[in-house]
């Protein structure tokens, strides 16, 4: 299995199989978070491989396709002339085993603003909740605490409109019982009333009050966002994470919902991290 390790602002790519296969594997890895690697410089550690000039050139081009510039290679002595032919630096043999890092970036500290609300998983724990309530003598109404349900797998909706990975734009209010589904993003200029449903494989933006159910990243994209002028959904779903809240009626201004860790987190739009990936 190939691996990519960061060394300062450079990457060290350890390769343990034929370059073509490695390129494919890496392609998947890079495509997951394209902008992160774009503009990086890399060194490939070829181990015991003895690629031809064509194979190495193809590998270099594959990396270039993801914005990663291959500067040099490490490997056995036979690699040296091949590298020279392609004007790549030969950096000598490998210096011990290359540690394989987990595929995601190192954990980034997430700072939430004071107004950020956290929606806590509760769905599967309904019984425990009831027991706790009885023990603590709490009231019967489940008010106050926000509720979220993590890890419930939602099958893709029955009717996805195959319009290609585009953005579907709708001007007008969606009434209860109406639904909009799209492969791509969804933008609604108007309200989305309780009982209405938005499902998108990408992001969902409501320029109005979102009071119905919105499911962004419906095909598994945990990076999808839900943004609304008034975010008061009956239920919010991003990929396989579900959340709901029982706060009502407060004027909070435009807000942005995304997955952080394993929960959906809502922040005021002004504080939102709009970069491509923050998971």
């Amino acid at each position, binding site marked *: 299995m190939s691996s990519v390790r960061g060394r300062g602002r450079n990457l060290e790519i350890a390769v343990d199989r034929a370059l073509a296969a490695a390129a494919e594997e890496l392609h998947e890895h890079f495509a997951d978070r394209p902008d992160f690697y774009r503009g990086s410089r890399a060194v490939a550690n070829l181990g015991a491989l003895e690629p031809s000039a064509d194979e190495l050139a193809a590998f270099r081009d594959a990396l270039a396709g993801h914005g990663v510039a291959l500067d040099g290679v490490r490997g056995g002595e036979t690699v040296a002339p091949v590298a020279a032919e392609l004007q790549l630096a030969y950096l000598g043999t490998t210096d011990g085993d290359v540690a394989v890092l987990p595929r995601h970036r190192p954990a980034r500290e997430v700072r939430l603003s004071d107004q950020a609300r956290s929606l806590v998983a509760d769905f599967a724990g309904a019984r425990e909740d009831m027991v706790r309530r009885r023990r603590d003598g709490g009231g019967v109404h*489940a008010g106050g605490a926000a509720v979220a349900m993590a890890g419930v797998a939602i099958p893709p909706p029955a009717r996805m409109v195959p319009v290609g990975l585009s953005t579907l734009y709708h001007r007008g209010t969606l009434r209860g019982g109406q639904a909009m589904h799209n492969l791509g993003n969804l933008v609604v200029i108007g309200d989305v009333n309780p009982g209405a*449903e938005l499902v998108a494989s990408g992001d969902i933006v409501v320029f109005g009050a979102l009071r119905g159910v919105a499911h962004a990243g419906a095909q598994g994209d945990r990076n999808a966002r839900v943004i609304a002028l008034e975010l008061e959904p009956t239920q919010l779903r991003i990929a396989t994470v579900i959340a709901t809240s029982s706060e009502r009626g407060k004027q909070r201004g435009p807000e942005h919902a995304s997955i952080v860790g394993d929960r959906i987190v809502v922040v005021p739009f002004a504080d939102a991290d709009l970069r491509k990936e923050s998971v």
Partner: protein
Amino acid sequence: MAARRIVVTSGKGGVGKTTTTANVGAALAQRGHRVVLVDADIGLRNLDLVLGVEKRIVFDLVEVVEGRCQLRQALIKDKRIENLAILPAAQTRDKTAVSELQFADVVTQLGELCDYVLIDCPAGIEHGFRNAIAGATEAVVVTTPEVSAIRDADRVIGKLRERGLSLRVIVNRIRPEMVRSGDMLSVDDVTDILSAELLGIVPDDAEIIDTTNRGEPVVLNVESRLAAIYTKIARRLEGEVVPFTALNPPGFFERIFGKAG
């Protein structure tokens, strides 16, 4: 061991089918039975609202029928009352999404999981009504003491009897002071016209409006007189003979100082 399958219907809309389903179901669950409530009103679902679970709906009846989820996944357990669960209807579909046979099948499956299945029937006598009664063996007909409601209940009773369902009547929203002044039919008038057995008498009470809006079955409030009445209905359903309370009109002082509902 299979459950009793009871449809709560009326013909006329707005007489209190959903509130009745929720509260009678809750009362039965409080008495220890395992109860599942089914919302048969596809496209105009309200049972989830009345029970306060609308935000926890992930799967619904239509998705169960279409095989996109398991029956158990669609059931929402009530957080306040043990042994009570609800199978919500779909909102973005309509009643033609499910056939009578499919609905009956779901109800039969539910019957294996609990002691009572209560089906909240949509208003009218169209496709939705036919679906709702398809799964049932007994019926509770809800009516108010108003001429139009009684006429519709009569029509529905005719259809239920055609299907061989046993049935009993709940007279809802009775105002004893209006019965006294002759401005409203009495319970006896109603049961005479419908020639059906009485299951319960529920007075008109503003408490229902508030609890419905908040999604809390009234039976959760042990001091409420409505809670006591729904509990009696549950006992009668169990087979116990419980005398009907005489409903007195609120006294002069209660009226002035706004006590009675």
